[in-house]
């Protein structure tokens, strides 16, 4: 019998994700991959997987899976109550699933995305070298549905060497000094000059407490509450489309920033005035609509 996860129930969205699909952005296929890369990687390290093996990205819990064969798994990312059959299990811990046992993942108290990593990885067919579901281009495996049987790949030569990891500080997006406002660090973007230049408030981007808008997803996080003002010389200038990066802070015509996440378009026609640091991207991927967020320059 091929080891597998039999999907009994899903919540709002469960996607197969790995480290992404670089190399095809020039033909309109973005990099995609796990939205919270460090949570995906922590799961891989816990179970002894190569980081390129795929895990399940579970949005707001609600997942129930049954083990076919004996499996080793770990949950990382947004901490959520979980149990195997009737036994509660820990977050960021190694968990053994006996054949036939059922893992149930509840709703995280904070954060958005919990990663279920299986030793051996989710072994669906890769598309263009990756098993990541890209919600923008439609490339990659479709969303996971109840009734799916997800094959688990052969375990690698690396063995797990810890049973539990310390909760990373971004497990709740605003970190340990809980002020209720997530602080995200940014680096200069290619068009910082359009809003006054690096060292300025970037047209009000920095220093404003933003709300995460409901119209946010794996493509990007929309912020509301203020409008970023362009500097005078750029007020009526149109920007020809240019390549976009994950973490780009783009200012569309209306002035409400978009923080681009894993499934961002390959190119965009509005100025990118700053770019999130790698860890800030991971924290941004855990923010919920209504959460408060401030951006500040990376030291």
């Amino acid at each position, binding site marked *: 019998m091929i080891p597998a996860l039999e999907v009994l129930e899903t919540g709002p969205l469960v996607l197969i994700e790995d480290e992404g699909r670089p190399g095809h*952005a*020039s*033909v*309109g296929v973005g990099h995609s991959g796990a939205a919270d890369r460090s949570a995906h990687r922590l799961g891989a390290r816990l179970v002894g997987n190569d980081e390129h093996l795929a895990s399940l990205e579970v949005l707001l819990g609600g997942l129930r899976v049954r083990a076919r064969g004996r499996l080793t798994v770990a949950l990382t990312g947004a901490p959520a109550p979980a149990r195997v059959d009737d036994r509660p299990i820990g977050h960021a811990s190694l968990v053994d699933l006996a054949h036939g046992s059922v893992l149930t993942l509840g709703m995280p108290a904070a954060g958005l995305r919990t990663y279920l990593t299986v030793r051996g990885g989710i072994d669906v067919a890769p598309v263009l070298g990756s098993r990541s579901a890209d919600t923008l281009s*439609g490339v990659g495996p479709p969303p996971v549905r109840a009734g799916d049987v997800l094959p688990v790949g052969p375990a690698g030569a690396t063995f797990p060497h810890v049973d539990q990891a310390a909760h990373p500080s971004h497990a709740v997006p605003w970190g340990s000094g809980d002020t209720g406002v997530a602080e995200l660090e940014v680096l200069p973007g290619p068009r910082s000059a359009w809003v006054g230049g690096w060292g300025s408030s970037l047209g009000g981007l920095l220093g404003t407490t933003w709300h995460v808008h409901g119209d946010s997803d794996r493509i990007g996080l929309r912020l509301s509450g203020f409008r970023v003002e362009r500097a005078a010389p750029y007020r009526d200038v149109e920007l*020809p489309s240019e*390549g976009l990066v994950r973490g780009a802070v783009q200012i569309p015509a209306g002035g409400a920033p978009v923080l681009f996440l894993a499934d961002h378009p390959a190119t965009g026609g509005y100025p990118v005035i700053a770019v999130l640091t790698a860890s800030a991207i991971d924290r941004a991927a855990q923010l919920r609509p209504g959460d408060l967020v401030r951006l500040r320059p990376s030291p």
Partner: protein
Amino acid sequence: MSDEPAPASRRGLTVLPAGPDALLLEVSGAAESGIAEVLALHERVRAAVDRGEGPWPGVSDVVPAARTVLLHTRPGADLPALGAAARALAASPPPPSSPPAQGEVEIVVRYDGADLAEVAAMTGLDPAEVVRAHTSTLWRVAFGGFVPGFGYLVGGDPRLQVPRRESPRTRVPAGSVALAGEFTGVYPRASPGGWQLIGTTDAVLWDPDRSPPAVLTPGTRVRFVDIEASR
């Protein structure tokens, strides 16, 4: 503040910061020449990445656009060294006789587009002249980016420059051949779109199971052929 990576301009290339794992290279010069400069830069960047010397192996993806080439890098790549290498590449004389890196493809088109008559009216040509103009030049893919497999093609007859439609269509059928501004393009799949539709092709421009999956990669030369004339 002084810690902003200073945009350095030399021989028309500006290296702009784009976060921890990327650099944006911007060509300068007149807007209309930007695309030719980008295509030349893109070809040389691709060649440098393929050779894999110096900092170039740190590049994981290369994205040309209208005036820029974005270099995505692997974590830990030496961005200052890469920026310097990109400037040196742009400043060095072009290789004596660079054979075209990409091939030439033919796309057979049925010129039956819903906007053909309107394009004719806007350009002052009759529909047959629009078809002749579209098929008489060798187009070149400048860049992609709208949906997988879509290419923005340049190099057309200047008389074919038409604005986008005032209200975009919510659904343009797959295989539609269209015009907008200085560009022509082919919709690889049904999608919303605001370009002027002049024809249709059965060519499959995007197939993720094929290698390479896209026909219209940047630099590829394209000749459109009228299905009526090819019979």
